[in-house]
């Protein structure tokens, strides 16, 4: 039986879509009102999400890891369905982040052109007999910024070096280090109509734009909305890309293992008896699971300091891109379990120029080297509880909300300036609001 709560006011978010559990499980709960068969699909999907993959040809249902890969399970990077983190230093490996690679130019579909020896993503691990590609060593350079009242806020800037390279030089590569994002609420984001996003882009006064990416299932270009640069058009494709890129596991969308030209051992590695290694049914289960992970409910929303912070968030311009409320349509694949509703993701799903400070110098379809998709802010206040860290932004460089705000540039320069000009009390109020999300 459905238990969706009707919207009773314009600013009231449909509560059934949100999870009221603020423990370490806060990001792993289903939206309310799933039918029994929906619950079955959700938990079948969770089995896939938590599955540890084994090297072919062994492993039965687990068979398919590699030949080149980063981790052995989805949950390894998306711990508790939450955010990954970067290494503290160059001798710590990337456990929940990855580095996208390319060379200048596009593939036939407009995607970044893979590096001839290392492909589109650095896979640090290999199956037995297949050398892992190498390692991305991350180090940090201290810097700082001075606020309007003289307060100096320390910042840190990442550097990535490629070491232990197994397939020759990687000179000339374009690269983009990215932490694993939280995966809750994605079904709701997928249900926001493109027309709504276009309307926001037209009205917001900055230069937000939809990415235009290749939709594999349809064989056509489509608006992008998932990933740090909105390079995936659908949740299912995003999941299939992660299966292939992170685990080396094939799906009906990407049925071929990814081995670069120079990687003969990769091409010679044993194949799984399951082809593709994730069937359409199992891919559908994990798609259902991901789509129905509920974003957590806000905490302390009525606290006076939080309310003041919320007003400041709007008044200094943050809410222009981190749009507080969006209206969804019924989800295209799950209209019964994800009906039209109001959500509070604090994103416009659009690409924005974030300035040179955050630039990754690697274009991705229409996203330029300075553009990033506005990341949703819902649930970020619970990251310290769920993932035991407070690291933010695409590469985890920001150690807290304040640092994240102060890395903004480009189209967000004015909003950052607005924050920097606030009094200490006002800044605290704004940060309290962000912690309540």
């Amino acid at each position, binding site marked *: 039986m459905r238990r969706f709560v009707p919207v009773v006011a314009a600013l009231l978010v449909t509560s059934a879509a949100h999870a009221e559990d603020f423990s370490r499980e806060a990001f792993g709960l289903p939206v309310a009102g799933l039918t029994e068969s929906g619950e079955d699909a959700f938990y079948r999907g969770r089995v896939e999400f938590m599955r*540890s993959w084994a090297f072919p040809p062994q492993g039965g249902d*687990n068979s398919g890891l590699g030949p080149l890969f980063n981790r052995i399970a989805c949950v390894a990077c998306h*711990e508790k369905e939450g955010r990954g983190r970067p290494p503290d230093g160059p001798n710590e490996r990337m456990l929940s982040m990855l580095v996208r690679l390319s060379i*200048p130019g596009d593939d036939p579909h407009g995607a970044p052109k893979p590096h001839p020896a290392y492909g589109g993503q650095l896979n640090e691990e290999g199956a037995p007999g297949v050398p892992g590609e190498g390692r991305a060593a991350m180090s940090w350079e201290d810097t700082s910024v001075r606020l309007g009242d003289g307060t100096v806020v320390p910042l840190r800037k990442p550097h990535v*070096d*490629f070491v232990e390279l197994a397939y020759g030089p990687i000179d*000339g590569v374009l690269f983009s280090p990215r932490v694993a994002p939280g995966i809750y609420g994605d079904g709701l984001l997928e249900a926001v109509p493109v027309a709504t996003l276009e309307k926001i*882009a037209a009205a917001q006064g900055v230069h937000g734009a939809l990415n235009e990416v290749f939709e594999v299932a349809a064989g056509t270009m489509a608006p992008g909305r998932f990933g740090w640069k909105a390079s995936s058009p659908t949740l299912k494709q995003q999941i299939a890309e992660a299966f292939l890129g992170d685990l080396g596991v094939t799906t009906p969308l990407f049925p071929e293992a990814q081995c670069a030209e120079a990687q003969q051992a990769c091409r010679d590695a044993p194949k799984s008896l399951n082809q593709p290694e994730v069937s359409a049914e199992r891919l559908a289960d994990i798609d259902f699971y991901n789509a129905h992970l509920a974003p957590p409910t806000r905490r302390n929303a009525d606290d006076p300091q939080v309310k003041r912070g919320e007003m400041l968030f709007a008044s200094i311009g943050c809410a222009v891109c981190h749009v507080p409320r969006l209206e969804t349509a019924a989800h295209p694949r799950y209209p019964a379990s994800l009906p039209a509703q109001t959500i509070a993701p604090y994103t416009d799903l659009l690409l924005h120029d974030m300035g040179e400070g955050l*630039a990754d*110098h690697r274009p991705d379809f229409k996203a330029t080297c300075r553009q990033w998709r506005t990341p949703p802010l819902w649930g970020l206040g619970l990251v310290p509880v769920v993932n035991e860290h407070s690291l933010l932004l695409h590469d985890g460089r920001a150690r807290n909300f304040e640092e994240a705000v102060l890395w903004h540039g480009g189209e967000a320069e004015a909003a950052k300036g607005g924050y920097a000009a606030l009094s200490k009390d006002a800044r605290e109020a704004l940060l309290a609001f962000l912690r309540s999300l």
Partner: protein
Amino acid sequence: MVSSPSRRRFLESCAAGALAGALPHAAQAAVRQPVTVLTNHNDDTLSLFEKGFEKANPQYRLKFVWFMPPDAMKYLREPANASPDVWWQAAPHNHLADMAKDGFLQPLGIAKDGLPASIGALSLEGANDLYHASQLTAFSFFVNSKAIREQGLPWPEDWPVLAGPAYAGRIALSDPWTVRFGSQLLSVATQSFGWEQGWALLSAIAGNAVIMSNGLRDEVISGHQPVALHIDTVPNAEQRFRQRMERVYPKHGAIVNAGYIGLLKKAPNLDGARAFAAYVLSAEGQVLLPKSDLPRLPIRPDAYAALGKEQFDPFAAQAAGQFVYQPTDEAPGRSTALAALFAGLIQDKPQFSKLWARVHAAETVGRAADVAEARRLLETIPVAKDFWKDETLSSAFKPPRRPAAEGGAQPPAAEARPQQAQVIPGQPNGLTLPEPAKPIVESWRAAFRDNQTRAATLLDAVKA
């Protein structure tokens, strides 16, 4: 719509930016030696150990080769395959012992300060230092606390609670004939409570229970059966699924098995392998085990002090006399005999459960001697505690030996022990009744039938 700069200009500036970021820090990252770990632990556990180990040992980086134990053995036995350095196995069966006998392991050679040699009769050390237990699995009740509350049932703190009338039709119990853990349970009860009293409890619980070969988890998760008798790993895992399941360690509990770690003889990085094994067995490593999504019990008593009072401590339970069960009498033949006894007890399960219901109903209205006698008949086991000392009987239950392979080649050690192969509920027990044992089992079944007929007659007489 914003006008975008030309793609060419962006590509040029992107390339320049990327290169500028890539080069200056290369010297900072030291080259680290890989340590390859063959394992079937879940990813969350591996991630915790990976972070901890690499932080403590920055000269090494871990590489996991994930295979279930049967596949791991196949992999190790294939000469063309590169050898991992370490084998770290999650329970249930000690496949490392099998492979150690076949010469695949080498001594651990690490300091063992703080590591106990055993818990009860379960040895934690491998012969010749070839492996060591790294985590424990305990017997537990798998409890749907919401269903317990909604059905107004007493909290299942120990076995006798499950033997009471409140739990009639509300327990899931593994069939000892088809599920290996089910036959282990019979020994846990009869050792923990004594032969006669333990069997009496088993009889009453069986009267209340639904006997199942698989699907216990779903029964409890759905609330159809609020309690199942299970190993703790399963309720631990289920806490990530559906709804919060609780794990209750009863006052009369047991360690049912351990997982092990060992170094492979052909380890390319022996120092790294040793460092990883030492870390897994260290106090720092052991406290990580209960923090995983699939929590397990540490094998270091000192780890429990760091984990706080909420953490169940099997060593404290052992010291307090709560763990009487010792797995030493789980010889295949004896397990078969016990499972056959239980099968005899429940040979007419509907009638058997009805008899127990009648006894419970009669007891609540205060009927006396005949009802007590009916209960005694249902609780009686037709063999004495030392029945296995009867050599005629025990030899009748001995499993037939497998014929030796042709040409003198020996079958793999694990394949030679099919009846010890699995301890996972829901996995086949592989019990077979040897021909000489059949008349013995038939006599037991007749004794159970006779007792149950007499009990029915007594209950008829008192109109219960």
